[in-house]
């Protein structure tokens, strides 16, 4: 058995539901306000279909291909109690999954298109990815050590707020926007699975408290990384 058509069908339905309100607004504005020509709107309609199909295939494919493989590798390290390889793998996987997050790319494209301020969107993405990787490791460490989440979130966000005063506004918006999108369909399932796996091996810990919060800690990283990159003159 490979990919089941039923799973693709279910994903298409879920994505269609998610996009429906936005599509409804697009239709209303097309009919009453924007009024593009039939040809122009045809291109939009084609794009809407491609978005729906593409996003669904991406999710189903990732769920059946890469994610189980990544989780399997993580679980092996957890079972062998190989902490250092687990953290190394967590760091590297956090980086490459952020690079593979489609919304990260689409945000960087829009920044470049609208403002033209980016020297290189690839560098911006790599800085954000490094931030997520490093803080992903902090999140795993928290599970291993059992420290309360405040100890990470409060200093992390306070540092971000202080840095905000030293960075031009375009850098601030870029950092916080980017931080918000690094947690998407690629990074979230992997971080959740790796976290749940780690938490389940550590017996006697309250899952409601420790299994969650990985994304919360992880998404501080990109914000901090981009702000620091701005402070030290990485972007002009």
């Amino acid at each position: 058995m490979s990919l089941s058509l039923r799973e693709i069908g279910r994903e298409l339905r879920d994505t269609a539901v998610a996009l429906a309100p936005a599509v409804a607004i697009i239709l209303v504005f097309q009919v009453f306000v924007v009024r593009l020509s039939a040809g122009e709107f045809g291109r939009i309609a084609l794009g809407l279909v491609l978005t729906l199909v593409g996003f669904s295939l991406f999710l189903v494919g990732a769920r059946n291909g890469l994610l189980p493989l990544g989780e399997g590798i993580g679980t092996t390290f957890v079972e062998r109690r190989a902490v250092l390889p687990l953290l190394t793998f967590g760091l590297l996987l956090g980086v490459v999954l952020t690079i593979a997050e489609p919304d990260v790319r689409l945000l960087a494209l829009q920044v470049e298109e609208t403002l033209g301020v980016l020297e290189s969107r690839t560098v911006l993405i790599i800085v954000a990815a490094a931030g997520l990787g490093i803080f992903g490791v902090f999140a795993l460490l928290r599970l291993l050590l059992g420290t309360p989440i405040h100890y990470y979130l409060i200093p992390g966000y306070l540092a971000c707020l202080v840095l905000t005063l030293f960075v031009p506004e375009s850098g601030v918006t870029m950092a916080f926007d980017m931080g918000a999108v690094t947690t998407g369909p690629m990074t979230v399932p992997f971080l959740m699975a790796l976290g749940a796996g780690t938490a389940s091996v550590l017996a006697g810990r309250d899952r409601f408290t420790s299994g969650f919060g990985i994304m919360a800690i992880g998404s501080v990283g990109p914000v901090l990384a981009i702000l620091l990159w701005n402070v030290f003159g990485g972007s002009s």
Partner: protein
Amino acid sequence: MIDELRTALVETAEGTLPVLGLIFAFQFLVLRKRPANLRRVVIGTATAVVGFFLFIVGATISFIPMGRAIGASLADADMLLILPFTFVLGAVVVVAEPAVRILAYQIEQLSAGSLRTRFVIAAIALGVAIALTLGMWRVLADFHLAYILVPGYALALLLTLFTPRNFVPVSYDAGAVATGPVAVNFVLPLFTGVALALWGDAASVGFGIVALIALFPIITMLLLGVVLGRRKRET
């Protein structure tokens, strides 16, 4: 169209090759194990790569330009019309996000039913609606994002200390799930569309809305925690 296809192809290669390289390197060089179901893995991976490409092409020719066009048409409208519109937009757009519903369901499961799914979704939707309204006000009045972000995060950190402790992680996760594909590819271009129409080249004020969508659900979820925590103590 050729340009969009070329961009999407480059983005797909840059996006997917590193993760493929890393996972296969660990699987074959470190674990030295053939994956249990290699055929499924290969087909799944190929499907994901094709989907990635189609998604980038689709979003760049549909949601992004249309969002921008809608934003441009809103720029002429009255402020008393735009702000309620963005409030409703925020509430409606989020309820549909699958990631939001999955998180809400997981919270209900792990809290043994004491936190109902619909409370969680309502709290997140309210948060996003507030985020969009404040964000649109910022675009119309053109002020620095920090005037919303700094008090917002200060409030969130303060509430973190007063909410029941097991509420903290899920609240921060709620901020992360609210920023899905619709936020980036429809709400953001809509905001930059308004900003471009109003402010021309200085349209950077349109950005920052995704950051606000990530912030306000945290605040509303933490508030929900404070309220529920107090109620539990009284009974």
